[in-house]
């Protein structure tokens, strides 16, 4: 089962190493990991998506909490989170295919980030599922390069971790 863990940490060198080490030691595969500072520059938020069972998650949460720089850990419930991911995708485009690709952009809400005679670079921020759909729609036009950020997430409503 895919799980989303949100971790607040002291923004210090080496912490990412410690966190990923913790996952790899238990042979948990990290699907995605996104790091960035929060409104407090001394604090970073790390959003980790992993595939694992509940009892394993409890142990991971506890182990994360043991790291000295970790301030808070919370596994976010699937239906109570807002999750977004950003994708940049460079796709082949010529005079013939460009308008078809633009239609896909309109339907998905993607924007054109860069244009060249033979390509279009598109950007889309959305849920990981919809990003995957977007990617599938573009594949017939031949994708040259693609980068996804991994999901970042917050809880819905006014609550915070």
């Amino acid at each position, binding site marked *: 089962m895919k799980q989303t863990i949100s971790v607040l940490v002291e923004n210090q060198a*080496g912490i990412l190493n410690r966190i990923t*080490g913790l996952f790899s030691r238990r042979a948990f595969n990290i699907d995605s990991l996104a790091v960035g500072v929060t409104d407090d520059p001394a604090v970073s938020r790390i959003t980790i998506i992993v595939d694992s069972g509940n009892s394993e998650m*409890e142990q991971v949460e*506890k182990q994360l*909490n*043991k790291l*000295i*720089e*970790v*301030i808070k850990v919370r596994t976010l419930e699937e239906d109570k989170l807002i999750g977004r991911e950003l994708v940049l995708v460079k796709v082949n485009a010529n005079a013939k295919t460009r308008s078809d690709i633009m239609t896909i952009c309109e339907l998905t809400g993607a924007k054109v980030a860069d244009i060249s005679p033979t390509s279009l670079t598109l950007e889309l921020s959305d849920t990981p599922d919809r990003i995957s759909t977007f990617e599938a729609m573009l594949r017939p036009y031949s994708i040259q390069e693609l980068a996804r950020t991994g999901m970042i997430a917050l809880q819905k409503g006014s609550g915070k971790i």
Partner: protein
Amino acid sequence: MTGAQALVESLKLANVEHMFGYAGATICPAVDALANAPEIGYTLVRTEQNAGHMASGYYRVTGKVGVCMVTSGPGATNLITGIATAYMDSIPMVAITGQVPSHLLGRDIFQEVDITGAVAPFSKHSYLVKDANDIPRVVAEAFHIASTGRPGPVLIDLPIDIQEQELKEFHYPEQVNLRSYKPSVRGNDLQIKRVVAAIEAAQRPVICAGGGVFLSHAEQELLELAERTHIPVVTTMMGLSLLPTEHPLNMGMLGAHGNVYANKAVAKSDLLIMIGCRVADRAILSPAELAKRTAIVHIDVDPAEIGKNMKAAIPVVGEVKAVISQLLKRLEKRSGGEWLEKLQHFRRQELTRPLPSREGYIFPGTLLRALGDKLRYNAAVCVDVGQNQIWACKHLKLGGGRFLTSGGLGTMGYSLPAAVGVKVAQPERQTVVICGDGSFQMSMNELAAVSAAGMDIKIVLFQNNILGLVHQIQSTPAYPAGPFGVSLDGSPDFSVIADAYGIQNRTLSDEAELDEALDEMLSSEGSYLLICRVHPDATTND
């Protein structure tokens, strides 16, 4: 003031009285500052791993965080086993490593290794200091983190230029306040009430006590809990010597290598109260099975231990000492009844059961029983790894003394350096080492540290000329090829080794001489090596 001087000044403020180390180029500024601090004693080890073990032995008898200091590169990597050994047994330790100049970090220059990265999986925390002004704070935090909550080793990596850097101002924080690190102390009151009710309802309760009781300095509280409720106590290997061997409530050590009736007691119990232990694989083989039959209370300071190896019906997170005190406020006297009497009967049988003997050899169990009777009440016994360890767990009788061994990592070579650490702290305390001929050869170079300090350590060496425990495992049907690569042929004549270090010694192969030989060893002045010939086929099941 330089970074090196700030380090030494901070160590003094952290009440450090002794350090174990090995110098090298990148730690020279710190060593130089230490030379000007006669308040702090210093032991030169013969290989860095043993600095960790000495710091461990030092802590385990004093309760004071052990400190070691080594150079970068090979010094730091040699120390790794010492750090991992301490981590697995939750021993608080501050390890200081020299490092190459900070502006050259990452260039793989001479004697650079990423030691903070290397020890990340088995240290509680680590620092790579990049500004000398941080040194006082880092030292204060390191001691705080190492010694509170679930204790463990903390490493401080100090580049040489940072040791030489001038500080703007020296300020050692009186209090450490880390927003992300606040270990629980008291147990939740509701959980405490549930534990009390469970104890009152239980017919066949058993306490399983581990090393966490020592770490929390709760030996007295444990004794009071057991004596007031008459609940029999089994211990893990790390909990050995919490109760005197012959205490009527002590049922011995549980686990694959433990006492038969300790395991029976746990298996037949209807309430298992685990205190400061983590029941690793060696202690309880199939935790899930046991949890089906027995209600389990688990008291530990580390929430991650609860539910990790064993599901607990009633988890209590808190300092063991605080939690037992909370329980004692609510628990009434109760009697042990038939359950206790039965266990005591079997325990007595086990402690006095006849042991095998072979002519021309010493059976270690026989020697350990006799040794136990002769030890001073508060003796410290440092035990190595292998058959010697298991024999000592089963047969060594202890009064109020301490049993020190590497339980979690099972690091061969632990016993002698640990004993040096004990002796540094408590020169008057009777200190005995028990080891095999394989483990002795892993750290016998520390006899130099013993001799240099004129220490009085009694070493019992069980010489079977094999790596006994591995030999024993290889002799089972699981390994049809039989024993291989475990002969210790080529070992030196240990009496000549002892002579070379100026240490008295005697070789023993006749059990009839055992009493007299032990008396001679224990009454001798200075260190002593008692070499006991042990038959290679003697096993821990005998």
